[in-house]
């Protein structure tokens, strides 16, 4: 099968499509884990709520062709605000207690899931605008039979743009400077006048907002149910582990690897075997690089 160029191109495309969603779902986790050492188990529900926001926007009387352009920012803003709320009400009490954070945020995720399940037991769907229906099809030549749906290309483009914007934000803005400072040394940054509380809340909200954006983009591909977050979140955790703490490039590399491996193993074997093989590969990978792809070097004893 690997000698068939059509098969290979299709699987690479599937892998890229999966990786782009994984990356958007995981980047917020990676950022806030790097900064605050907490993992938000309700992050998958931010993805779900982003999709729900997209559905709500489309249900309002706006023209279908522009609803997507309204849905994306609306999903970002809604979930970013929810993230800020979550940080202020629950998570900030839990710094230094990462394992308790897992339990508390899992509780939040149960509440959010059940609320949406009670409201929409069968989930909601978002109708992609007309210009997104269709696909790039190649006829003739060695690659005859390759189909690349526009919606998937769109999700890949959104993911690329978001990551580029994030990199620029961290590199060229004052907020980005502060975030990098707090990431390097929280105490020194604070003593030099950086308001670390504001940075924590902003980064957390930015991360949940990106997850919400991912949810809105995902809504163009698949229906959004109350529990859709749980089908992406475990792999998103693996992206954080494999990528390394708080590194964007690490997360990009990890999401691409996991996306490609998953796509190939799923086509060779099955979804269930793919999960097992991916987990075994992750554990083996950690034997060689226990701190992930990108290691933040530090003299601190306890990371």
């Amino acid at each position: 099968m690997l000698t068939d160029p059509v098969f290979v191109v299709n699987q690479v495309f599937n892998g890229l499509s999966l990786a782009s969603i994984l990356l958007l779902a995981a980047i917020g986790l990676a950022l806030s884990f790097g900064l605050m050492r907490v993992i938000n188990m309700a992050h998958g529900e931010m993805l779900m709520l982003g999709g729900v926001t997209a559905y709500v926007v489309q249900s309002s009387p706006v023209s279908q062709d522009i609803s997507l352009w309204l849905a994306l920012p609306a999903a970002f803003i809604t979930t970013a605000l929810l993230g800020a709320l979550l940080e202020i009400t629950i998570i900030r009490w839990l710094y230094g207690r990462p394992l308790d954070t897992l339990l508390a945020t899992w509780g939040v995720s149960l509440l959010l899931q059940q609320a949406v399940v009670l409201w929409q037991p069968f989930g909601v769907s978002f109708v992609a605008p007309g210009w997104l229906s269709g696909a790039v099809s190649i006829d003739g030549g060695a690659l005859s039979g390759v189909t690349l749906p526009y919606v998937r290309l769109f999700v890949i483009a959104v993911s690329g743009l978001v990551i580029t914007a994030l990199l620029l934000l961290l590199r060229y803005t004052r907020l980005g400077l502060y975030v990098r400072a707090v990431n390097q040394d929280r105490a020194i940054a604070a003593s030099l006048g950086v308001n670390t509380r504001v940075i924590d809340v902003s980064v957390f909200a930015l991360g949940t907002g990106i997850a919400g954006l991912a949810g809105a983009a995902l809504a163009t591909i698949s229906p959004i149910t109350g529990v859709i977050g749980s089908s992406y979140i475990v792999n998103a955790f693996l992206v954080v582990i494999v990528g390394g703490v708080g590194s964007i490039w690490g997360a990009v590399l990890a999401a691409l690897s996991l996306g490609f491996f998953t796509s190939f193993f799923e086509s060779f074997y099955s979804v269930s075997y793919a999960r097992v093989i991916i987990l075994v590969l992750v554990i083996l990978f950690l034997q060689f690089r226990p701190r992930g792809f990108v290691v933040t070097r530090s003299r601190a004893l306890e990371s």
Partner: protein
Amino acid sequence: MSKNASNALGFVIALLGFIGLFMAPSYLSSYNLSLLGRFLSFGILAVGFSLIWGYTGILSLGQGVFFALGGYAMAMHLVLVQADGALPGFMARSFRPRITELPWWWQPFESAWFAFAMVLILPTLAAALLGILVFWRRISGVYFALITQALVLAFTTLIVSQQTYTNGFNGLSNFTTLLGFDLTSNSVRRGLYIATVAALLVAWLAAQWLARSHFGKLLVAIRDGENRTRFLGYNPTPYKVVVFAIAGLFAGLGGAFFVLHAGIISPADVGVKPSIEMAVWVAFGGRESITGSVLGMVLGRFLAEDISSRFPAIWPMLLGAVFILVGTVLPRGLTGLFERLAVLLTRSPSSLASSDSVQEPFVTPVTASANTPSEVSHD
């Protein structure tokens, strides 16, 4: 109340509780007895959970895997007894792939003693293997918790997909005989219940003994400062592997008893959600206390059984609230709450001086100044 006194009190209360449990057949109906037996099976798992999380600081979100290994090992034997030499019904009916004879790895489970051995060996070995691979590379904390969650997801997905060999999502059920005993008869169910309480008692005593031993002290040292323990010359890895394997053993034993009481085991009993719920009930009871962990788990299973059947729409919300409550304001669970209450109730000037569980800012300087050189030089 001093720490020793409260420990002794806890011990006495726990022993009284066990006497009450042993006498339960005389005051509970057969149905309720079986239900309690099912809850106590989770209690056996909770003993191990307290050792790894409360004592060693390792949070596993995948204990369902080890529970399932013990449970499925037991259930495989029971299914074969029921099939009586023929191919079990679900295998005969499956067609992807269609098989005509028992797979080789099912065959030894014809023997009850092999199955009993596997109930103990499989989960212990699996836990030890995972522990070696992960703890050796000093992967701990949140990373470890997330890896165990990925493990339980992969495990249950695999079971569900292997319809022919595991009966997939439906799990293994429909069995009535073990070692010639009829599992549906009341006297056998009573005996089974007593055996469950006895197993819980053995696990509880073993854990108490371990916790008080040198080994137990090292577990606490690892929890409170893994690097400091390393600097003192101890390698934490073997300790963590061993305690994780013990927790796996207890989880598997609990799983086997669960199958005997419930008559079924399926991926729905052991997946991502049931596994993290195990953690929250242990924390709810008080993970740093073995008795508290067991009580929290049994109470949690009772609530899950009772409320979720009566108010299925509200139950996940309540459960979510318990998670948030335990994570934020009750990290030491009900045990911690009672200890604080006991301290408040017994607080008096005389008890303050002897107490070592409360910080008294005005007592310590007095005792400290009595021994200072300046004080001595005045004499």
